[in-house]
């Protein structure tokens, strides 16, 4: 009576669903590449300055707050001026494109000789960041080194899409630790791949998508260590994921405590020997040190510290913890909390100036609350494996969130300026969404779980389409 759909009939091998989801996410990201205007992503010019400086000079940029920052190369400055970047950023009513031609004002000039100068001084606000993403991006830039700047920017943008696909793959692998049904795994992977903010960052010149992919790899290895006892090789894999995350963005280092914490929790619960846990830690330490030690050495030599070069921090506290909590965390109505972890997390586009419909955010928020309720219920009535998995996801999500606030407190103390943005939670998008997804499915009878998973995935595909159409309306209509 329930005839299989043509696509479902075609998906016979368990990994067939994965291929379908990856293919769809690739098409979706290509559509985002076509939709997002040049430089209309948070700090995209600053990130491109780093890529361009590294690719053109072969040297890492040096951050110096005493000098002017973000001074573009002549060709980037030309596009910023002609594309009206500064008019459109943070002004949702201003469209950076004009006229009805497929060529923007002054666009022909970019392909003409003599070419505009590509050199900048490297002193961008992205310059203190570690080099992993920028090294890869500079490689892509050099592959397209003879092309015009638009081709180079979009080639580097496409690199971020690779990391979105890797994140979707990690979501599939993580879901395989929880469910054997390939359709449910595919639904979870599709939900992750349809997260609108991840999609936009996945077509931006920005190190965020690579951080998310590396952190997702670590989350998968950590949660897998419940079912499969980890050894030195798994520990090494965890360390490499941590090292890549750390070398991509300073927030990556925050993931370090979760390796001993989660693996020790699992080992204690399952009665594994302390010796095997120390072997995992040895592998993790080796993997991390292999990648991170040279970078820390460089930081020490270049900046005199191994901490992120924030610059401008005052040793005199400008605010107390209660005052910080009152003003920036627990303010009346939790308005900033909602803005950060609902609106900005799920998707505010462009320079975070373009929201979609309130109802869409409310529905996404309701998904999280219903999922949290289901997870709480499952934790009380479910199996030890379910409790362990949920506890690990909660530790990863809540711990990462707490670390973000702790970092912001330090920045507010030094500068008085809060720095958090909703997308900073994306590195824990897998454990975060897994809690809600497991919770929602836990509310259903076993024979209905496939249906609930499919409905949720369909809803997120619609959320994604809504977001993309909103971006088109904001910039081009």
């Amino acid at each position: 009576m329930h005839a299989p759909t043509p696509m479902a009939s075609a998906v016979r091998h368990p990994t067939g669903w994965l291929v379908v989801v990856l293919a769809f996410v690739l098409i979706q990201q290509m559509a985002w590449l076509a939709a997002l205007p040049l430089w209309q992503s948070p700090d995209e010019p600053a990130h491109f300055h780093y890529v361009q400086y590294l690719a053109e000079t072969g040297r890492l940029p040096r951050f110096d707050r005493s000098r002017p920052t973000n001074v573009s190369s002549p060709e980037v400055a030309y596009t910023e001026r002609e594309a009206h970047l500064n008019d459109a950023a943070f002004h949702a009513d201003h469209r950076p494109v004009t006229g009805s031609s497929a060529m923007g004002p002054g666009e022909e000039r970019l392909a003409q000789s003599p070419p505009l100068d590509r050199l900048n001084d490297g002193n961008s606000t992205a310059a203190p960041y570690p080099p992993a993403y920028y090294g890869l991006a500079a490689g892509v830039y050099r592959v397209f080194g003879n092309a015009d700047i638009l081709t180079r920017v979009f080639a580097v943008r496409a690199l971020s899409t690779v990391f979105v696909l890797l994140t979707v793959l990690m979501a599939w692998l993580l879901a395989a630790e929880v469910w054997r049904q390939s359709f449910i795994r595919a639904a979870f992977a599709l939900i992750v791949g349809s997260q609108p903010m991840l999609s936009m960052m996945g077509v931006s010149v920005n190190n965020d998508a690579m951080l998310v992919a590396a952190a997702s790899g670590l989350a998968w290895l950590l949660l897998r260590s419940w079912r499969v006892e980890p050894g030195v090789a798994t520990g090494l894999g965890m360390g490499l994921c941590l090292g890549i995350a750390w070398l991509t963005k300073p927030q990556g280092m925050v993931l370090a405590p979760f390796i001993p914490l989660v693996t020790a929790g699992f080992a204690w619960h399952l009665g594994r020997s302390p010796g095997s846990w120390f072997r995992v830690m040895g592998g993790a330490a080796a993997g991390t040190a292999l990648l991170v030690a040279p970078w820390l050495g460089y930081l020490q030599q270049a900046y005199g510290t191994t901490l992120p070069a924030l610059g401008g921090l005052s040793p005199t506290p400008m605010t107390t913890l209660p005052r910080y909590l009152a003003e920036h965390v627990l303010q009346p109505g939790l308005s900033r909390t909602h803005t950060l972890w609902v609106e900005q997390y799920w998707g505010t586009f462009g320079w975070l100036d373009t929201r979609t419909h309130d109802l869409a955010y409310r529905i996404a928020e309701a998904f999280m609350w219903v999922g949290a309720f289901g997870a709480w219920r499952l934790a009380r009535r479910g199996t030890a494996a379910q409790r362990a998995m949920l506890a690990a996801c909660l530790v990863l999500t809540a711990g990462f969130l707490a670390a973000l606030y702790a970092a912001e407190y330090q920045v507010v103390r030094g500068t008085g300026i809060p720095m958090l943005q909703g997308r900073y939670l994306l590195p824990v998008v897998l454990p975060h969404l897994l809690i809600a997804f497991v919770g929602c499915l836990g509310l259903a009878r076993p024979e209905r779980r496939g249906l609930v998973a499919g409905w949720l995935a369909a809803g997120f595909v619609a959320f994604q389409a809504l977001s993309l159409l909103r971006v088109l309306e904001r910039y081009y209509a």
Partner: protein
Amino acid sequence: MPDTGKTLRPGLTLLILPILLMAGMAVLQAFQLGTEAAEGAGDLAWPDYLLRRMGQYKPALFKPPANGLLLGAYLLCSMVMAGVFATHGLRPTTELPEDPDHA
């Protein structure tokens, strides 16, 4: 996973409501996009106007008509994927029961 949801069974039907709302909002957004683009399009057909402006300051791969094909392919695939995922779960599963080692 064990059955822990008997008492909440009727509530599950409510899950379809937000999904329909999301899809409805996406359709309304598409209409709004078309309406606003039509206002500025002048003598041009509004999709042509929209795709031309989308192509500004982008490489040839993302200029019309390629960007139109990409966008069309994405919207079509979205509808297919949403339809497949929403209906596939109706099928009785033919896969193996859940492994007790799995959560």
